[in-house]
């Protein structure tokens, strides 16, 4: 029996599964025939397939808009698991939320594919890189288009796998291989909680389908809802690198920069936010869970912001800033401002992908240099990178009218609208930090005098194309959500989240927006004063506050605490198990058993003399024995 079969199963005009099919095809073809591809062809092939995926998502969007106003289009492909009463379908779902996610994923992915053709040119595993990228896009699309928790989990784990493969793409370098393992293992902690949560959902609802679960979620008792929500949130924390499972993301920067842009900025790490937003009916059943989500989000945002200020590696700086922005998204979700969180997710995908690609372009121009101390003054040498970067920078800092301003303003304002003043102030502090570290990085990289002897060159055409398109999206993305109440995106998402309420906080929308912009300007001002104006010798400042600088750079030693407190004892325990327990006790038992049997066999094999007469004697012995038994018995 197919559970949920009685629910409306509308078939869209175009099958939804076509969308993930394109990148899957690409991944399979490239993985099976990777060695045969010459030149850049495999890159174009992969880009084309992801582009086709993007186009078909647009077709789905038009399909959906032209539909008869149904809340969701669902494609049930087949019954996947049938074990007793446990039944799960492979089913895809298109609703506004899924569409927004799928469009963002496939759109950004297409640009990053094109960018990678130049960036990865000449790599000996060029085709394999694109195979992994395609595979990632496939799993990500499965994740956002899934209609039940189990299929979502498949995508969830799949992107985790691709993240592992791509972080460790240059696995000959030990840091890359280590970072890949770290990313995989740390996210696995959250994933196991997520899986337990899925089991709980099944036990509670006898279904994993979104319609069924979310329709009945309001019936949940507050305690149950809290447990369920926190288990799901634990998965999100791992995937989206929030405190305390954030340590893998800065290390993940060992991967190629397009990977950082696609997976560790724009798409995969936002899957956690998507999960929380998707499962919002469960979260809304528990006030406690929502507060925890918001608190974790804002604490992570401030913590990561403080850490980002101390980074000298441009990619690690961006990694911490991603953690911080993801914190903002969770904060928004925790405040109940789901469409604002998704808006920030989309805008962040644009400007952060753009910034990563910009960083990649800088590295490309400087032959792999990532240390901002050895950059400086690059705005003349690479104008295209510089100007696109400026758009990303200002968007992220929250300067109107760029996309980041609208998105972040709505998230920050949601706290005020809920009447939670302290959260609002904390969010403003986070925004301030964002403006400061982004401006610091900009001034260190592009302004001042050059601190590198290399002759930098600007981005090649295909990289430039991706930069320009993403910069445009970052600049004008704000159009999607000019107003939190009736902007394009909030209105589109309304069927999923319900109508947004008119703000009723102590401050008006205008005042909130002014506060946000002011904070951004102040942040940029501070950074300009220290790093841009030339009036302060910031290099000297570094040595004066060396302790604070070090703490910030090392992420306030969270990773070191983990290494010392968890990893080292675990290694010690494993070493004991491996070299003492396993070798002595387990191997000892096995070897001992083998030796005992061997000794017996050594004696016993002497019976096999090879002389046929001895065997005949044994037969006679048996005959006499059996006969004597028979004679005695009668």
């Amino acid at each position, binding site marked *: 029996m197919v559970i949920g079969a009685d629910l409306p199963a509308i078939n869209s005009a175009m099958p939804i599964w076509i969308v993930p099919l394109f990148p899957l095809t690409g991944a399979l073809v490239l993985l099976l025939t990777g060695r045969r591809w010459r030149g850049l062809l495999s890159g174009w092939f992969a880009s084309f397939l992801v582009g086709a995926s993007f186009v078909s998502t647009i077709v789905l969007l038009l399909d959906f808009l032209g539909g008869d106003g149904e809340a969701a289009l669902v494609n049930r492909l087949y019954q996947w698991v049938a074990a007793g009463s446990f039944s799960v379908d492979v089913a895809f779902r298109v609703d506004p939320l899924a569409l927004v996610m799928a469009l963002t994923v496939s759109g950004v992915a297409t640009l990053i594919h094109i960018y990678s053709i130049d960036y990865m040119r000449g790599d000996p595993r060029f085709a394999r890189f694109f195979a992994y990228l395609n595979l990632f896009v496939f799993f990500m699309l499965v994740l956002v288009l899934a209609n039940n928790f189990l299929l979502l989990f498949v995508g969830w784990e799949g992107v985790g796998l691709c993240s592992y493969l791509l972080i460790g793409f240059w696995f000959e370098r030990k840091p890359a291989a280590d970072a890949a393992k770290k990313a995989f293992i740390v996210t696995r902690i959250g994933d196991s909680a997520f899986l337990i949560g899925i089991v709980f959902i099944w036990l509670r609802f006898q279904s994993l389908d979104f319609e069924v679960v979310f329709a009945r979620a309001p019936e949940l008792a507050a305690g149950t809802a809290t447990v369920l929500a926190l288990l799901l949130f634990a998965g999100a924390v791992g995937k989206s690198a929030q405190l305390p499972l954030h340590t893998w993301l800065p290390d993940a920067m060992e991967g190629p920069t397009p990977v950082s842009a696609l997976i560790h900025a724009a798409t995969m790490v936002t899957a956690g936010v998507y999960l929380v937003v998707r499962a919002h009916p469960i979260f809304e059943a528990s006030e406690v869970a929502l507060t925890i989500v918001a608190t974790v989000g804002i604490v992570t945002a401030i913590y990561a912001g403080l850490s980002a200020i101390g980074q000298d590696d441009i990619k690690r700086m961006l990694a911490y800033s991603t953690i911080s922005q993801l914190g903002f998204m969770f904060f928004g979700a925790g405040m109940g401002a789901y469409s604002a969180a998704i808006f920030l997710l989309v805008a962040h995908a644009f400007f952060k992908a753009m910034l990563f690609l910009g960083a990649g372009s800088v590295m490309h121009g400087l032959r792999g240099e990532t240390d901002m101390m050895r950059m400086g003054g690059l705005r003349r040498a690479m104008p295209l990178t510089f100007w696109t970067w400026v758009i990303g920078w200002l968007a992220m800092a929250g300067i109107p009218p760029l996309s980041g301003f609208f998105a972040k303003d709505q998230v920050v304002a949601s706290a005020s609208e809920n009447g939670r003043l302290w959260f609002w102030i904390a969010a403003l502090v986070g925004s301030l930090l964002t403006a400061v570290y982004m401006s610091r990085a900009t001034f260190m990289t592009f302004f001042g005098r050059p601190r590198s002897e290399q002759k930098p060159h600007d981005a090649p055409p295909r990289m430039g194309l991706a930069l320009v398109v993403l910069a445009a999206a970052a600049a004008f993305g704000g159009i999607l959500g000019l107003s939190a109440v009736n902007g394009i995106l909030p209105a589109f998402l309304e069927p999923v989240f319900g109508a947004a309420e008119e703000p009723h906080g102590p401050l008006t929308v205008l005042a909130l927006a002014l506060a946000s912009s002011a904070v951004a300007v102040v942040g940029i001002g501070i950074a300009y004063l220290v790093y841009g104006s030339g009036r302060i010798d910031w290099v000297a400042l570094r040595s004066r506050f060396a302790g604070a600088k070090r703490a910030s750079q090392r992420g306030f030693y969270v990773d070191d605490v983990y290494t010392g407190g968890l990893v080292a004892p675990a290694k010690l325990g494993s070493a004991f198990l491996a070299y003492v327990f396993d070798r002595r006790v387990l191997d000892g038992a096995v070897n001992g058993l083998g030796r005992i049997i061997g000794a017996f066999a050594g004696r016993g094999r002497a019976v096999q*003399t090879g*002389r046929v*007469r*001895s065997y005949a*004697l044994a037969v*006679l*012995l048996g*005959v*006499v024995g059996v*006969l*004597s038994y*028979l*004679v005695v018995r*009668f």
Partner: protein
Amino acid sequence: MNADLVVFWVTAPLSVFAAVAMILSRNAVHAALWLIVNLFTLAVLFLVLGSPFLFVVQIIVYAGAIMVLFLFVIMLLGVDQQASLRETIRGQRWLAVVLGLGLVAEIFFAVRLGLGLSRGALPDFARVNEGGNIRALAEVLFGPYFFPFEVTSILLIVAAIGAMLHGRRRVQDEDVIDMPAAAE
């Protein structure tokens, strides 16, 4: 004293003597000859037991064909070898003798339990052998035992073919196994 009892007491000791002589003769030809003697005594006992057909078959097939085959092979392999009777496997001889005596004792007890040692009532065999033993045997053999009888013919053919294949001479190096040089 009946004639058959006389015949039994003459042939039985001769039969046992011939068997003992066979297993004790160092020369294979002598052993074969003693076995022929033994087979003849058994043929006589078959006659006593009312089976003239088996009496004849025993002489023709066993004492005739099979023993000629034996002698033929002995000729082929060399006649004048005097085999040593020294035992080489420790404990083999006395263990074999003890077990042999045990086997005889067991059968003795079994026969006493099942049949009794003295003479019991025997069915009239003349009626069974009505129309002659051969005719009676033929009716059983081609009646209920027809199928096994046919199968034995296949067995004989297969045995003949197998013997031919085995006896074929093919001396190739890879066939020579277990030679002293190859064994080490």
